[in-house]
């Protein structure tokens, strides 16, 4: 066991706090963003699952500051805002987070293409999982296309958001 020789300065403490809450806050913004009709600008009707990007990114990069209850909270917020089945996306997010955690060493420090490919698989699996759950919940076979289209858009936009997250992460890692 090693002990810290002196207490951290207030600035360091603030930096630490920012780092500890950063993934959650980024996830929060992402979840809210998925309810903003962004695609309406181009007369389209797709709402990419921005929250899933945040969950995947931080599960791979910094799971130590992105605990399961933060993931759960993000999913729950999504469910509450969407008026869909309560707990559906919370369950999907937490399960995907758990699965990604077991595989994260595959992606850490590797080429971005691999990281992206991992997200493709994660998005596809969570999309199908959510579709299955929703079909069970409503007691009928729903059309899988809306969720597949959503996931396709999410995967396509992932590099952009991963870059943004990376910038934030680097910024705060310097401070933390």
């Amino acid at each position, binding site marked *: 066991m090693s002990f810290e020789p002196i207490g951290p300065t207030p600035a360091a403490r603030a930096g630490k706090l920012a780092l500890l809450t950063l993934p959650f806050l980024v996830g929060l913004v992402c979840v809210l963003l998925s309810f903003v009709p*962004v695609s309406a600008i181009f007369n389209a*009707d797709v709402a990419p699952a921005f929250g899933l990007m945040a969950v995947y990114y931080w599960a791979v990069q910094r*799971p130590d500051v992105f605990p399961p209850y933060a993931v*759960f909270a993000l999913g729950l917020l999504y469910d509450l*805002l969407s008026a*869909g089945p309560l707990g559906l996306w919370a369950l999907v997010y937490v399960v995907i987070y758990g699965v990604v955690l077991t595989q994260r060493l595959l992606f850490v420090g590797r080429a971005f293409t691999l990281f992206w490919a991992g997200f493709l698989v994660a998005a596809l699996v969570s999309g199908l999982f959510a579709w299955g759950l929703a079909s069970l919940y409503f007691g009928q076979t729903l059309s899988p296309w809306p969720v597949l289209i959503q996931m396709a858009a999410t995967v396509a936009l992932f590099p952009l958001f991963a870059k943004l997250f990376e910038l934030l992460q680097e910024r705060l890692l310097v401070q933390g």
Partner: protein
Amino acid sequence: MIDQTNRPALPIRDVSGRVSLIFMVTLAAALLLLGRAETYVVDQARQIVTDLAAPLLELASRPVSAARRIVESTDQYAYVFDENERLREENTRLLAWKEAALKLESKVARFEALLNVQVDPTIDYVTGRVVGDSGGPFVETFIVNVGSEQNVESGQAVIDTDGLIGRIVATGQRASRILLLTDLNSRVPVSVEPSRARAVLAGDNSASPRLEYVPTNIEINAGDRVVTSGHGGLLPPGLPIGVLIQTEDGFYRVQLYSTRARLGMVRVLQYEFPDEIDLQDPPAILIQDADAEEEGAVVTDPVSPGGGT
């Protein structure tokens, strides 16, 4: 890891992380089962979260709608001449329709006066902006920035410039949720014009809702207009919904007039079912009119009423 001092603690954290992961999975699954019951607590929690998020969503949706306007106006520059031509033609046609509508309006007013029809009270409305888009791939809802402060209540119809889009299912103080006609849970009593066949419009998360409980003894055809029937007393009758189409497997669906991608401003109709309205007298002008006709003794003449008044 970056934080060197935390390194020895990692395995312990790993175990506790796994435990809390399992706990969270269980909790989510439990919520999913519990939520089936649609309890009051769940509804309240939804409403509070929506109310809290609405100002943020509204803030975020402003630049979006501004950007959309820019994209739309650049689009329009490309087609401005064609569009102008089209509008001229349409205007000519509409003027003819206006003539016909005015004639019919006066005719209907006379008939209503003669029969002392109890006219529906005028419907108040409040206009709001859609600030929150659809709630994910399994739910078709919008969040609109008007709430109980503007007397919006559950069950009220929501229309845009083209027709009915859905109804309010939950209200907070400053935000409400619209259940779109396309949602899986949406059921709306409709009537198919001109045969006035009654049916139920049932959403299934696809763009064109199904028409259910179609009577077999009344003929309806693809291309017929579908409007709200007003049965059940929740929605005002006669709101335009869409056009009847027939799918390859023989089922009827309705192509909605309002395409949701165009949504921006919507109107919430504060309709109350007229179950307790006082007996109305015909409008004063029509009474005078009828008196004048009685004096002239041409009441039964079928030609003279109609266009004139």
